[in-house]
């Protein structure tokens, strides 16, 4: 799978399924630098969002749940691809999150770590102790000014003190989390396999409100103003939905059904549209306001990640191609 296409200045950063991390000129498609992670051990995948700092780009790597595999967090110098430091782990399939001078990430083994951003040395680690026998997906974490929020493989949502890893609170919902955690206005949002979306108070973990959904919420959540967007998945019927709900979870504002289900992990917000891609190479955009289809296009491959910068939209497909589209400025 591709990591999320991320643009900084003129460069597009993306990791491929074959173990290469690329910096590509976003306008011309010319590669500026690349790094092959297979030189550092048995690993070849990039998942999740990279972290961009003033001069670095950090990305996690893994070899899925392979017990012989390894993973790292790489801190690349953005302009040259030089490795400033790398932190070795069993796997790092999650986003890399920064709080102050530390970065945070999780592994397929449900170990969560804090590492010093400047040196790459370990600050602390936290483990739920659950064995990931089925190679379940590790949900992306969220963070506020001084706390990290994670969904453990034990189905529990934890609030950890960012400076120490100490558990501040934990909350077990009636069903296991099935989406990444998202934080907005001191409220945590999460979907569960029980076909519900929850709002939790970030201070206490108390459930504020919840909303039943037509199918299981999956992937990541996205916000625009007071709307929350997500994908739902009915795996048995290979049907997916893109839905918009209000941020207080009082009801569904609009819903768009699709078959097959969306494969691009999250509704990507771009130009007042929600953009989604599937494994037939179809990309569709729906108006954020009311869900009306705006445009669609076709490419070759299973679309796994979508990113954007200004008028440009980027899509990574599982088969290994990165596509760059540009919205015409002509009237």
């Amino acid at each position: 799978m591709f990591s999320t296409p991320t643009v900084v200045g003129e460069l597009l950063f993306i990791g491929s399924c074959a173990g290469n991390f690329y910096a590509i000129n976003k306008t011309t498609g010319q590669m500026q630098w690349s790094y092959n992670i297979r030189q550092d051990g048995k690993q070849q995948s990039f998942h999740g969002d990279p972290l961009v700092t003033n001069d670095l780009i950090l990305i996690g790597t893994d070899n899925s749940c392979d017990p012989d595999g390894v993973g790292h967090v790489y801190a690349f110098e953005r302009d040259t691809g030089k490795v400033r430091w790398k932190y070795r782990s069993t796997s790092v399939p999650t986003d890399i999150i920064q709080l102050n001078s530390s970065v945070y990430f999780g592994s397929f083994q449900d170990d969560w770590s804090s590492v010093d951003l400047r040196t790459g040395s370990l600050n602390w680690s936290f483990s739920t102790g659950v064995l990931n026998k089925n190679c379940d997906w590790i949900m992306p974490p969220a963070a506020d000014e001084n706390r990290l929020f994670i969904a453990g493989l034990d189905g529990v949502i934890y609030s950890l003190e960012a400076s120490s890893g100490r558990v501040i609170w934990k909350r077990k919902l009636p069903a296991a989390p099935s989406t990444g955690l998202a934080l907005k206005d001191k409220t945590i949002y999460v979907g569960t396999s029980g076909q519900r979306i929850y709002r939790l108070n970030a201070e206490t973990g108390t459930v504020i409100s919840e909303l039943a959904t037509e199918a299981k919420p999956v992937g990541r959540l996205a916000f625009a103003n007071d709307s929350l967007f997500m994908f739902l998945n009915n795996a048995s019927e290979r049907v997916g939905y893109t839905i918009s709900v209000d941020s207080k979870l009082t009801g569904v504002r609009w819903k768009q059904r699709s078959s097959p289900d969306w494969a691009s992990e999250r509704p990507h917000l771009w130009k007042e549209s929600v953009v989604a891609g599937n494994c037939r190479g179809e990309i569709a955009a729906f108006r954020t306001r009311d869900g009306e289809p705006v445009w669609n296009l076709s490419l070759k491959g299973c679309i796994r990640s979508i990113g954007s910068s200004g008028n440009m939209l980027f899509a990574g497909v599982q088969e290994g191609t990165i596509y760059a589209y540009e919205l015409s400025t002509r009237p």
Partner: protein
Amino acid sequence: MKKNRGFISTLVLVAMASLSCAQSSNKKDANLSASAGPELRWQYETGG
């Protein structure tokens, strides 16, 4: 014989040019179906 080889080469070139045109024509169709959507600028093959 030389003339024939030249003729065949020309045919091959014409055939290749047609294939190219067909490809670019397909691209246009995809963009037309996207109506006001974005247009393909470049693609990069990572090989996997």
